């Protein structure tokens, strides 16, 4: 520990103090190397549309927000929710209904807020119903699972014309195709993010079009990731983790465990709602498949494959799994995908990203380097 205080005196520069907010024992990546890599990854994402299919990547990034919502709720607070897609879907449908009825920039902006609130509120209601009713463990999983099935059953039969809210027909299996283009702002002070490409020309790369929606999602994803990192490494995050590890014990330290779960669940719902809003906005469409068993299983898969105690894992695995899902072709595609999931979870039970991290740390910790200023405990000392 003396090493830490010695270091503390010397390099408590502004960046390191800033960094400390985002670091702690609950996340991986406590080194300068990590943050350099992180910045490089964000930069790569920022210029990716010049080379690849940015439209598709924007979809994966939207879904990564959904993955993150499960990661906080389950990975950090121990509540295995099968219902993130409920809040996702409610967010998406709310956005659709409100924006169809108020198709002005102000109305659409309000619809975004409504979608997020819708996701959060529905999670709050379900969470209140469960947590304050003493429902725990696998029963939470199953209640949330049944909730998605209820939503699926219900939404799948709203094809009839009697199922409309104002101007917006719910559409059942047909889905809701007439969602207005995402525009944020009011009146003249607004900007359209969907179908509004602007041409770019970069020397050495050439001409291409970039989609404002892509950058909107990128900013939201990076912001959410950093925000959640700060959250899970805060005092509140420590309590979340304690709840995950042992609810009864945590209650005996005077924490209102029920409320912690309720709050985190609601937050996760709002985040899933945001993801749903962006999903509906990007596709200009939403249908009940988002409530299907398959779709409900996906977040659990992303988070399990990526590493459930890793926010970064949720993001990376969402991008990877979704890329594979869309791009594998041929009749063996599903067999390969299934095999891949199966083998990954069997061989890397703690997840891809924690495993990679271990590999990197193991190989990097050569002689002489192990004692650097970036050993895991140093920043966690600072964060107090």
């Amino acid at each position: 520990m003396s090493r830490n205080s010695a270091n503390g005196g010397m390099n408590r520069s502004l960046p390191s103090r800033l960094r400390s907010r985002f670091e702690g024992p609950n996340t991986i990546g406590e080194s300068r190397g990590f943050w350099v890599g992180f910045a490089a990854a964000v930069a790569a994402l920022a210029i990716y549309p010049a080379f690849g299919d940015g439209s598709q990547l924007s979809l994966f990034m939207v879904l990564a927000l959904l993955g993150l919502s499960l990661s906080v709720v389950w990975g950090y607070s121990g509540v295995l929710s099968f219902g993130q897609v409920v809040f996702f879907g409610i967010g998406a449908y709310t956005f659709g209904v409100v924006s169809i009825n108020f198709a002005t920039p102000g109305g659409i902006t309000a619809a975004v807020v409504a979608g997020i609130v819708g996701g959060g509120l529905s999670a709050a209601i379900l969470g209140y119903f469960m947590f304050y009713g003493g429902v725990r463990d696998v029963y939470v999983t199953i209640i949330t699972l049944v909730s998605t099935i209820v939503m699926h059953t219900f939404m799948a039969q709203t094809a009839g014309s009697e199922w409309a809210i104002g101007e917006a027909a719910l559409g059942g299996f047909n889905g809701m195709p007439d969602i207005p283009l995402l525009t944020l702002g009011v009146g003249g002070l607004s900007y359209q993010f969907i179908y509004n490409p602007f041409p770019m020309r970069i020397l050495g790369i050439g001409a291409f079009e970039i989609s404002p929606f892509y950058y909107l999602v990128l900013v939201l994803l990076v912001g959410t990731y950093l925000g959640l990192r700060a959250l899970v490494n805060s005092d509140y995050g420590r309590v979340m983790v304690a709840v995950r590890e042992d609810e009864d014990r945590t209650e005996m330290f005077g924490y209102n465990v029920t409320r912690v779960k309720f709050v985190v669940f609601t937050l996760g719902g709002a985040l899933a709602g945001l993801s749903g809003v962006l999903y509906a906005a990007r596709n200009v469409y939403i249908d009940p498949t988002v409530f299907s068993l398959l779709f409900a299983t996906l977040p659990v898969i992303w988070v399990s494959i990526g590493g459930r105690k890793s926010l970064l894992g949720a993001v990376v695995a969402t991008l990877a799994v979704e890329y594979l899902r869309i791009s594998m072709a041929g009749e063996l595609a599903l067999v390969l995908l299934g095999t891949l999931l199966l083998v990954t979870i069997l061989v890397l039970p703690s997840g891809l990203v924690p495993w990679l991290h271990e590999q990197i740390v193991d190989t990097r910790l050569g002689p002489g380097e192990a004692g650097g200023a970036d050993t895991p405990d140093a920043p966690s000392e600072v964060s107090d």
Partner: protein
Amino acid sequence: MSDTETESDIDPLGPNVRQTAAELATGDRTETLLQTDGLVKQFGGFTATDDVDFSVAEGELRCLIGPNGAGKSTLLNLITGTYEASDGSIYYNGHDITDLDPHERVSRGISMKFQVPSVYGDLSVRENVRLPVQQFADGEERRRLVAEAIEAAGLTGYEDVDASQLSHGQQQQLEIGMAAALEPDLLLLDEPVAGLDVAEREAIAERIRRLNEEAGIAFIVIEHDTDFVASIAEEVTVLHNGEVFREGPIAEIESDPEVQRIYLGGES
């Protein structure tokens, strides 16, 4: 509060007149800290605690003994709110806490160490200790309190070790440290030295005595090791078949033939 009606039930030698060494020294009057009133807990057809009236004074160190299945753990679990009482009331600092949630009781100053050690195995020792401390301390003070608690638990040097890697005795020490770090007024320990070797038993006995004397924390300690009981407490309560069977100084209790028959056995 129904103090007036229960007055007569209170042992005349009870907590109101008992004082710890520390308080005797400073001349403070002791007050009843915890009082149970006709506490009943039933599991199905089985009555685990039956009409228990039991009290602890501020700063008192009380041991709870009695045969296996007497209802000792049940009583502690009722006090912490882990179990809901079938009947009766619990008063703490003069307030009825019978219907409070466990965490609300903790925030009023009751803290507990479970019978089976239950530290957060996947978290480091430091993270374990921070959890109680962060509730009332920040920054520099928090760092100091965390370090002190770790040191008091004899775990200096183990700060970054996952709690699951500690020995049984170290886990017990850590858990007591965490419970004590809440700065409670009443600390409940359920068999804190079961399975510990002699040296660790002594370390924990020492720890309990110090917390009691220096921090003025009141204790209820369940333990079957009579030597250990004798080394920390003067007063013991014997529970039997869910009822308070005897209460009094340890020496007196140990020589009580009825207690010998139901609990201590043999010659003693």
